[in-house]
């Protein structure tokens, strides 16, 4: 079949063919013509104009009423033509915005990037995937000369650009704290002040901060209303919720956070997560925390990074590859 050309000559030919044969082929070509017209930004009133002209050439004796009625139709199509132009303009604008957001997202990635540290005797796995282009979850590893490992995990209630902006603030505040100030409760108290002063009260940030000391084999931590993580007892194959209570960051000016200490045994794991994991939605239903644990349990025998990746893939598949919330999962295993 020959390709359809976008001109009066061709339209007239197609119209004539159709009027003669009433053939589906001509109608199919009319459809091609219509698609081509949209692609070339040709508005409906112009097509009607072409139609009128073609008709007049084919039927010079066209009754006045028919030709007038077609002019009437042309007039009635003008707003559709404008709507088409507006649509095209808005579509171009949308792709502009999208590319701007993707630049912001990659900038965020650079700003908030953290290196998974190599700590002797520890195995660390981490995965963090945003629901949209920008991530409202944030995790960061801090190491020092003594070989301690600090783990920050935060979640802004809400997602998208505002959440991402708030996260950058958290990261830079933490960077500005003095090196010797590593106590989880102190860090949260300081961050609480920063958030309270700088962030809109309608925005909440939950955060968990943990500090692993290899010398004493202890894990100290404090939580600002963050989704509780789990301690995995390898010998019994059992999970225990890491209990820590505390107000979300920024709720009041002065808040104190209680600090807890756990002794870590060989092969045990610390599992930290955000509510994007525990509040996975399947259809209209949130999955239960027990189901989350079961999934983690299924993969916990794997090396830490493989385990978190597998858990993520499982939930991604479960939600038809469409995350409802930013998803972050960290597993730290003591190897010796």
């Amino acid at each position: 079949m020959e390709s359809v050309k976008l001109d009066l000559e061709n339209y007239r030919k197609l119209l004539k063919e159709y009027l003669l044969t009433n053939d589906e082929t001509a109608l199919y070509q009319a459809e091609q013509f219509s698609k081509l017209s949209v692609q070339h930004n040709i508005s409906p009133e112009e097509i009607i104009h072409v139609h009128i002209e073609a008709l007049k050439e084919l039927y010079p004796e066209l009754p006045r009423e028919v030709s007038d009625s077609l002019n009437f139709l042309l007039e009635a199509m003008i707003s559709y033509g404008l709507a088409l132009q507006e649509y095209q303009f808005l579509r171009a604008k949308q792709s502009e915005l999208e590319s701007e957001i993707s630049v912001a997202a990659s900038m965020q990635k650079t700003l908030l990037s953290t290196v998974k540290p190599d700590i002797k005797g520890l195995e660390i796995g981490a995965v963090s995937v945003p629901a949209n282009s920008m991530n409202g979850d944030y995790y960061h590893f801090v190491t020092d000369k003594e070989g301690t490992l600090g783990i920050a995990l935060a979640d802004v209630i809400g997602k998208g650009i505002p959440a991402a902006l708030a996260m950058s603030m958290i990261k830079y505040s933490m960077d500005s704290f003095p090196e010797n100030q590593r106590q989880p409760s102190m860090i949260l108290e300081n961050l609480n002040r920063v958030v309270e002063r700088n962030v809109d009260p309608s925005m909440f940030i939950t955060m968990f901060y943990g500090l692993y000391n290899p010398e004493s084999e202890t894990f100290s931590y404090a939580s600002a209303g963050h989704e509780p993580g789990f301690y995995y007892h390898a010998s019994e194959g059992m999970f225990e919720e890491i209990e820590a209570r505390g107000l979300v960051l920024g709720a009041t000016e002065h808040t104190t956070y209680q600090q807890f200490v756990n002794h870590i045994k060989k092969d045990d794991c610390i599992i930290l997560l955000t509510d994007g994991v525990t509040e996975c939605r399947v259809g209209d239903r949130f999955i239960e925390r027990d189901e989350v644990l079961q999934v983690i349990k299924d993969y916990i025998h794997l090396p830490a990074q493989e385990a978190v990746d597998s858990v993520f893939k499982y939930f991604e598949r479960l939600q038809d590859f469409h995350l409802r919330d930013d998803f972050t999962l960290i597993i730290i295993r003591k190897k010796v």
Partner: protein
Amino acid sequence: MGFNPCVNIRKEWDIVGARQLGREHAKELGFGTVDQARIATAISELARNIYLYAGTGKVCFEIINQLDKKGLKIIAVDKGPGIRDISQVMQDGYSTSGGLGAGLPGVKRLMDHFEIRSDSGEGTEIEAIKWVR
């Protein structure tokens, strides 16, 4: 000139009068049917804005005869409240989403040249030109 170049806009009916006069000029100048319809729609939008937001005003026409081209200029003037934020009303989707029609961005698209002056409290003047192709 042998015609009254302006139509006063006081009631909705006057919008039709403005369209009519504009279309006559467009025909005389040799605009095709599609452009005639576009010019008429632009006149409608401008006249309607006057009627809805300023109450009264006028739509005037000027035939431009230059060596290389001919065109029709529409001038819509009112002494209404003016437009506080022109960039907002010139934004796509601002008026259409409210179901008010093509709005000023529509007029700009329908015509070849578009200019607007407006001060809060001083009224609005819009000039739009379409060239004969």
